[in-house]
């Protein structure tokens, strides 16, 4: 496996002038990204999420060479993004959901043709990729329409194609499904999933739509206040925050005392005792169902998967690591872990909570720049 992206101690500060008194203004330095360590291997599909202002887009802009980091070391495809931006541009593709990279007044077809020359792609290669995108993203209906007349969903499909026509090694997507309807969103997701299956394109996706992440990304990185608060799989996240699958049992007749089942604590009693909700800790679905069927007549049983949105919302509200709260040495050891481990946490290591979660809620100045 080769490393496509590596960032160490990445930091971006912005200065803001804040009103202090009637005339006085104070310049404050705020860190939008605050000591970020990230390594991405070739072919990985990485979901990069965080609340508004967490520093997602800023990170992406530093990785693509648009913004100069205040501190830290970044390599993408072995290149330094800012210093070698134009060379890097040949090897990466970028889609910013909120900005268009197509030419406003040209039809898509001509935009694509121009991109072929801009990226110096051999004609046959270009044609083959375009053919594939046309089929998968259903572009044929609006290839001749000027970009300014396209609907958002059509434009986004055009943007994706434009970002892929030069066969990039890494694709950065910043909220690619923002504002899209269900059909377009599915088209985009399906396309990206297909791309991920092919396995030679690395994908970094930021989004607020967690369904995107669940469908596409095995690895999830959560940032808040410019720091990584989780790095691991979605299952890791559930495990860490104790979110469990739930068994929802509807009873014909309410029980005076809901049964206590080993390995499955009772979470909720609803509908006047007609509905019992158990969380699956060590018990299996069958254990719970059997345990209930022994004492009551079951009308219906449903198993509810843990809701990622809820977990993430909890993460956003209190970004401090639960492990850290229990362990007072947590923040200190996390700070020491940085320099002591020069390569940073690898995805597998990062699944381990104490190592992956640096001090959230550390420095007070953190930024609200997206």
């Amino acid at each position, binding site marked *: 496996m080769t490393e496509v992206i590596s960032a160490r101690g990445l930091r971006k500060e912005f200065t803001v002038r804040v009103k202090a008194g009637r005339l006085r203004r104070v310049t404050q330095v705020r860190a939008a990204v605050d000591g970020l360590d990230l390594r991405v291997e070739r072919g990985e599909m990485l979901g990069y999420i965080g609340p508004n202002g967490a520093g997602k887009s800023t990170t992406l802009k530093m990785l693509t060479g*648009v913004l100069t980091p205040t501190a830290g070391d970044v390599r993408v495809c072995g290149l330094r993004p800012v210093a070698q931006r*134009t060379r890097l541009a*040949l090897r990466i593709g*970028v889609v910013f959901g909120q900005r268009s990279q197509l030419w406003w*007044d*040209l039809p898509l077809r001509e935009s694509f043709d121009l991109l072929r020359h801009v*990226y110096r792609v051999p004609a*046959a290669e270009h044609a083959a990729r375009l053919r*594939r995108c046309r089929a998968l993203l259903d572009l044929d209906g609006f290839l001749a329409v000027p970009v300014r007349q396209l609907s958002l969903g059509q434009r986004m499909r055009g943007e994706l194609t434009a970002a892929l026509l030069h066969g990039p090694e890494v694709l950065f997507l910043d909220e690619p499904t923002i504002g899209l309807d269900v059909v377009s969103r599915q088209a985009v997701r399906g396309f990206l999933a297909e791309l991920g299956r092919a396995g030679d394109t690395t994908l970094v996706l930021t989004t607020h739509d967690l369904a995107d992440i669940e469908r596409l990304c095995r690895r999830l990185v959560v940032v808040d206040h410019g720091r990584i608060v989780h790095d691991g799989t979605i299952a890791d996240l559930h495990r860490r925050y104790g979110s469990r699958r739930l068994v929802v049992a509807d009873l014909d007749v309410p029980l005076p005392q809901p049964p206590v089942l080993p390995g499955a604590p009772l979470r909720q009693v609803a509908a006047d005792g007609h509905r019992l909700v158990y969380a699956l800790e060590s018990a299996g679905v069958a254990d719970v169902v059997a345990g209930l069927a022994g004492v009551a007549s079951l009308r219906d049983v449903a198993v509810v998967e843990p809701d990622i949105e809820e977990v993430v919302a909890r993460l956003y509200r209190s970004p401090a690591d639960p492990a850290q709260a229990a362990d007072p040495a947590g923040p200190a050891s996390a700070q020491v872990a940085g320099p002591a481990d020069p390569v940073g946490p690898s995805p597998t290591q990062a699944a381990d909570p104490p190592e992956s979660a640096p001090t959230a809620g550390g420095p007070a100045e953190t930024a609200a720049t997206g």
Partner: protein
Amino acid sequence: MAGSRPLGHGVVTSLPIVALGTRPAGRVARSGRVWLRLEGNGVGSVTATVAPSTTPNVILWFRTFRAITASGFRRYSTYRQAAVAGIVTNVVFGFLRCYVLLAVAGGAGAAAGYDRRQLATFVWVGQGLLTVILLWGWTELADRIRTGDITGDLLRPVNPVTAYLATDLGRAGYAALARLVPPALVGPLFFDVYVPTRWSTLPLAVGAVTAAVVLCFACRYLVNATAYWLTDVRGPLILWTLGSGVLAGLYFPLRFLPEAVYVPLWIATPFPSLLQTPLDVLVERDPLPVQVALVAVQLGWAVLLLAACRLVQRRAERRLVVQGG
């Protein structure tokens, strides 16, 4: 494998086992890595070095530049109604300016070394050139900086100054057809105009117009680039509009001023090179050596300001802030 390029593009060295004949095509990456599919010979991939592509970089660069220029031409040619409206305005103001300047020439039949016919040509070609060099009304770069769309330009493998220059040359090409020709045809219908007599004037004038387009682009780029620092460029734009109109010789030919004023202006500022120079060259106001010297001054300014654009762009990128997503 999507798309293949014949291996003939480079020389494959240190390639074990596989004879090239077993596989007609592989993929050649820019990094100089070759992928070959092994058919029958074994499984796996072979890495080898290839010599760089036989097409020189300069030619590739020119192809890119030409493609962007062509797209600039097409992009601006989509706004036809705007072009018609602009032509009408230019022609109306052409009449006004022409009558004023002819009144200045008065009974003597000459003013500041121009005769009546030269003045008419100066005005009517000037009305067309105004939109070819595009003295006013270009805020695309500033708008993109303000909205953050500049990000898209920075993510292309072409320097933004180069890309915008290429686009602008395409735009100027379209303007030369759609905006320069109509006033240049209307003028002679109503006024007695001057037609150049020296064979050398035509190539010189074409060169002077091209240099003026590049120079004017560089000026506009610099004015727009202040948005990197100011965000709102209305102030610099107003200064530019006022200054360039007067100092480029649009409102009146600069030769109307005392020599002690216009000569330093001509050499120490880029403005007269924008409009006054190409028009003076065209109406043969000066003998050939002076014409050549004027174009040389223009070229000097164009090179200097393009370099300044590159510098400013590089400085700006270091402090760029893209707000809000």
